[in-house]
């Protein structure tokens, strides 16, 4: 239930520009994840062959 309350808690900033800035940070983090998965996929190919 604690986790449920946490995801339901609305703590996003009111200001739309602040939200866009937060969205850009989210996007960069996700882009990093994408690159990491791509590298892992190739690495897996190298190690498993």
């Amino acid at each position, binding site marked *: 239930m604690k986790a*449920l309350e946490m*995801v*339901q*808690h*609305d703590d*996003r900033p*009111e200001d*739309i520009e602040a*939200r*866009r800035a*937060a*969205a*850009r940070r*989210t*996007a960069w983090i*996700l*882009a990093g*994840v*994408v*690159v990491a*998965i*791509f590298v*892992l*996929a*190739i690495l*897996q*190919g*190298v190690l*498993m*062959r």
Partner: protein
Amino acid sequence: MAAVNPAIQPDVHASHDHKPHGFLHRWLFTTNHKDIGTLYLIFSLTMFFIGGSFAMVIRAELFQPGMQLVQPEFFNEMTSMHGLIMIFGAIMPAFVGLANWMLPMMIGAPDMALPRLNNWSFWILPFAFLMLISTMFMPGGGPQGGWTMYPPLALEGGMNVAFAIFSVHMMGISSIMGAINIIATILNMRAPGVDLLRMPVFVWSWLITAFLLIAVMPVLAGAITMLLTDKYFGTSFFHAAGGGDPVMYQHIFWFFGHPEVYIMILPAFGIVSEIVPTFSRKPLFGYQAMVYALACIAFLSFIVWAHHMFTVGMPLGGNLFFMYGTMLIAIPTGVKIFNWVTTMWGGSLTFETPMLFACAFVILFSIGGFSGVSLALVPADFQYQDTFFVVAHFHYVLVTGAAFAIMGAVYYWLPKWSGHMYSEKWGKIHFWSSAISVNLLFFPQHFLGLAGMPRRIPDYNVAFADFNMLSSIGGFWFGATQLIFVGVIIHCVYFSKQRATERVWEGAKGLEWTLPSPAPYHSFTHPPVVTAGMLAHGDVSH
């Protein structure tokens, strides 16, 4: 009943403002989520007809036994290109188009979080597909190794290999950027009061789908990059002669490929979860269970990939793990089917065209699900592998599942987009003609597969002739029927005299239905004040 929110009134008056003038400025440089959504939808419809025309060639060749119309090499090109175009060009972009149109309006955001990235995500696609289709005019023709591009067969081609791989890379980049944008938008741009567990299920389905895309599209990119280096740079990741392993490609590909199946069906689940409550005039039964079932299906999709390759010769333990894992997926999927039916139960049902497509989805997708469970059984799969039974299974999932949900969504939201009602009579004609023809097309393929007819062959034993003829007739009928769909859309957008109301459907609930029809070019420029009763799920009064 959703009251009109005073906070959105300024948008109503600004609805005709700030629209860019000039064709290029409006469509090439657009950063507006509605314009980009429209571009995605037009693009996917175009690809649907191109991929569909390849399917017509396949069905024409298979109309009778013996070599009829095309050479075997060209037949292989048709099956490969049909798969690539329908998956990456028709189904996925259609869902992204629907997401672009609806997500910001559903969560009370002014636009997608990263509008210029959104423009780029779309405009990569036409060039990617031009490059892919151009391979058909190259010496040696286009890819002939199937949409899965298994080595060593896929590497046997000429210059098409590099073009096809680069075009798939571009499609992947487009999907990844779209997914990043969707996650960033949903997590950061929701209006106050639209908390995660108050979001429409379509938004949830896309949030989960976007995470799937982020997780598996780079894996596909890695797999085909290794294919590329094997072909042109002398590596031997998948060359047995150089110490590589072709089966490893299959493992890596299907680690992408199985979640990809859910990428193409989870947004369809979201759409059906919007349509069914509206036309049942009841809230969705078990909202949270629906959300958790989506997440559960997404998780399970990562641990079942090898059920696509039971016959490569895995250890018994591996076969058992992937068999039981696959069968587990039936549980959350069953929860969803149960909840849709229970939402309808006792509801004040009406059967407008979107609801007809949603009901057909529930029934026909279940047929695809049942054949999926059959295929999950290892001993049975040894019989079914690479037969038309598999073709029947995944077409029930992707045509009567994903494509029917997309068509239902277009009918459901078209009045909100265009401001006009479509012709209900022609919508229903389109539905019934599609529903009958698609079953004539794909149901006999179960029998063909069970009788042993292999997939991906241009010629076959005369014993399979009758069912193939029926299937081909269904195919031509289904293809021709889709011209009605185009006619209904064009009529609705340009010629319909019947204005759509704000809420369009009596039972519709959610922020998007508080906007005027057609939705203003810029909506929710100020976050709406969400009041009790405005959202379809959750109570904002406490």
